[in-house]
């Protein structure tokens, strides 16, 4: 039954393909890493597993942003904050797992607290020695923050650019806060020097492969959930809020509730991405809250194609591969490339590489259709949630022109 729906339309086929690829990768890469001897050409080195695992976390973050930006029209410039909060929750668990193997050998206090001459554990560190509690916090803390923030922001109808700017202020405020030593989160250095996760050595290649598989599975699950949300009636409401918020409101819906739901779900997804990211890179520090990181996430989504499910994943993988290459080979050119990417994508690729691919394929199909006799009328009705540029929703024939920020 459900497979029938998978094949119902082009977009859905694409989602199925994505999920399948992720599931295959989740199994295949660990196998290639662990079971294949290192001198074989099919062997995947451990550093590659960690690197791609990191990219998958980024992809999950980009997908989370896509849910609010691509489908609901909320450009959040603070999604890195939810990512980092999830990461900190996981980092606190990993910190407690070090136990008395730290530099100072204190069984209760993490090293930085001993260094700061603290005598007892702050209350907000209680419970983080249990994995289930940390896992709960990974979901709850970003979710609760997003809920509280969205509750206030969407009710008072803070929209568009204003919302983007205050989300940026949110992550900036958190950045400043987490830099402080007396916040109890390790200050400037953050949390690092992890040893174990669930009793397994975090450096071991088996653990790394497991984390990789977990990231791929989490991403596959997130793709499925996003697809179900977007495909539901609720998803149609999200898209209508994106395209014409006032009209949706006049029709009797409550846009603030719709946005609040999308924003909270998205924040939870970002938090999970952060929690999977931290054990794979081995550190979390306040730099993750930097507003420029959050803006970079936006460009991943934009490059891949917002308002699609596959787009942000492709975008995150592409941009980060490019980043790894540039920062290694031509470090001074990376910012030029990234900046140019921002400009080019917004000017020439408003629908991302996925949109470009569709356009190219459509054109090819049309040309073939013109060359041959038109096929009998079985053209699939592709219902795809690609965002039209807002300008197209304006009065017909209106040329693009500045709008005072009212």
């Amino acid at each position, binding site marked *: 039954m459900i497979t029938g729906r998978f094949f119902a339309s082009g977009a859905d086929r694409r989602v199925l393909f994505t999920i399948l690829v992720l599931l295959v990768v989740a199994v295949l890469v660990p196998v290639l890493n662990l079971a294949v001897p290192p001198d074989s050409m099919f062997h995947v080195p451990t550093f590659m597993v960690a690197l791609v695992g990191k990219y998958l976390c980024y992809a999950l973050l980009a997908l989370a942003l896509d849910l609010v930006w691509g489908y609901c029209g909320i*450009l959040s410039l603070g999604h890195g904050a939810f990512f980092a909060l999830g990461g900190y929750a996981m980092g606190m668990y990993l910190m407690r797992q070090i136990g008395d193997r730290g530099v100072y050998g204190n069984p209760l206090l993490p090293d930085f607290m001993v260094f700061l001459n603290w005598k007892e554990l702050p209350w907000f560190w209680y419970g983080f020695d249990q994995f289930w509690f940390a896992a709960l916090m990974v979901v709850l803390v970003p979710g609760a923050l997003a809920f509280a*923030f969205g509750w*206030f*922001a969407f*009710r*008072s*109808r*803070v*929209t*568009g*650019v*204003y919302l*983007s*700017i*205050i989300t*940026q*202020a*949110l992550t*900036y*405020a958190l950045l*400043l*806060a987490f*830099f*402080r030593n007396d916040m109890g989160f390790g200050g400037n250095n953050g949390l690092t020097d992890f040893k174990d996760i669930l009793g397994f050595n975090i450096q071991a290649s088996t653990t790394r492969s497991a984390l990789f598989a977990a990231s791929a599975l989490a991403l596959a699950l997130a793709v499925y959930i996003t697809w179900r949300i977007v495909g539901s009636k609720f998803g149609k409401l999200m898209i209508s809020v994106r395209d*014409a*918020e*006032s009209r949706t409101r006049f029709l009797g819906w409550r846009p603030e509730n719709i946005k609040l739901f999308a924003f909270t779900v998205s924040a939870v997804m970002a938090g999970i991405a952060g929690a999977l990211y931290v054990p794979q890179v081995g550190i979390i520090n306040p730099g993750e809250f930097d*507003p*420029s990181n959050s*803006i970079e996430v*936006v*460009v991943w989504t*934009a490059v891949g194609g917002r308002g699609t499910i596959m787009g942000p994943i492709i975008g995150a993988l592409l941009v980060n591969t490019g980043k790894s290459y540039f920062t290694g080979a031509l470090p*001074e050119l990376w*910012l*030029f490339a*990234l*900046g*140019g*990417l*921002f*400009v080019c*994508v*917004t*000017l020439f690729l*408003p629908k991302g590489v996925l949109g470009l691919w569709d356009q190219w394929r459509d054109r090819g199909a049309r040309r073939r259709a013109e060359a041959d006799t038109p096929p009998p009328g079985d053209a699939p009705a592709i219902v795809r949630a690609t965002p039209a*540029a*807002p*300008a197209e*929703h*304006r009065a017909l024939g209106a040329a*693009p*022109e*500045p*709008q*005072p*920020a*009212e």
Partner: protein
Amino acid sequence: MKMPQVLAFLFALFAAGLGPVSADEAGLRQTIARFATAKDFKATEAVVRELAATGDPAVELVLLALADGNLFVRKSDSAVFVGKETGQSVTLSDPLTGEKVGEVAKAEITKIKVNNGLRRVIRDLLGGLTLGSTDPAARLAAADTMFRTPDAANIEALDAAIGRETVASVKTRLEQARAASILVSDRSDEDKIAAIAVVQARGDRDALSLLTAVVARSEGPVREAAEGAIVLVNSSLVLWAAGQNVWYGISLGSVLLLAAIGLAITFGVMGVINMAHGEMVMLGAYTTYVVQEVIRTSFPGLFDWSLAFALPLAFLVAGTVGLAIERGIIRFLYGRPLETLLATWGVSLILQQSVRTIFGPTNREVGNPSWMSGGFDLGQMALTWNRFWIVLFALGVFAVLLYVMKRTPWGLQMRAVTANRRMAASMGIRTPWVDALTFALGSGIAGIAGVALSQIDNVSPNLGQGYIIDSFMVVVFGGVGNLWGTLVGAMSLGILNKFLEPYAGAVLGKILVLVLIILFIQKRPRGLFALKGRAVEA
């Protein structure tokens, strides 16, 4: 020694010998000559005290030179000179008259050694000596020194000085110094209580520490009077501290105003989110750096005028870049604010990296012209000139911009386009040009803000990044499309920040301000001064 210098030296000796030498001067010269035979610091100090005891202002030169380590003895004849080291040679001059005597190699002379104890003695003694100086500033400094190190022995000298003092401000200080001296003397309680009143009127930290010392060592009515005075001084100090905080707040606010006012135009009037705004500020700062480099290498005399050259250039550079961005990128994105935000963010990355490639990643040094360095006191508040000028400059820029917007045809067109674009276009206003020029104006203003900020901040490729979030906060807080809103927003955020700082610390204060702004926007999503109109939300 070269012939002319020998002649000059001989002539100086001749003149010194035959000129109208007073008995005093001959005596002074004898005393000064004894520096050459002083074997240790104690002996030198004895000579210093003897010189100071003469009370002749003429010894100031030699004592100052001694304190600075510029007093030399010539090995050949044990004569004492004031010297000025220039490379390998030393220019000698007469210790009393300061006339130039000649130039010798370093090997021909020995320096008279001083230590910190001796320097302190000299400074204290000079304090008394300079009471008779002809320069009011020197007399003022002397009075202040005597206030800080009161000595009952000074009272007569001070009385005499007060009697002949003509400058009112110096006279007040002298009276305060006299009061301080009375408080350490064994005069009657009435005198001391009167003196406490004088000291209290001074009302600064020095007065406070003096009064605290009085409380510690006296009793009875004097002690009570001193305690009462301390309470009064403390409360006035609190007021001054609040005033100082307001000043810091205004100073920070004017920096925010400078950074945000260009944004108020591009964002407020045109609705363009220019994330590269901070980089326009940075370009202005680097323009200042380049101008100063050119002036340093080619026209060193014009250094004080460097900012005057930098201002129009920075306006042009940033304005041109802004014009290019508008024509090249932004005009294709009108009506799509979120895309504009991303594209301009990309531009900001490119600009940053370009500057980093051209000028290097490290901070560049931009100097303060002489009229911007140093500071002055206003009551108990310490103000620095560069902050002072920046406050004035920010207000000046604001006034000019207000004039342009309200009183010039261009400003009229800008406001017309903002109010109703189609109607303005129907009236024959070329709206694309107004857009481009408005954006260039906003960017140019950011450029001249960069000139000002280069005076107080590090000039590095990251300069703009530090201001972009703050500027957006100011504009959003003040209300979009309203220059007055930007002014009020900048000043209130600046002052709020500085008042939170003493209680919460700098970082926590800033976080609190950000949280307050986020909450404020919930309450008033369009800022303090929202534009009123019928524009329907998209």
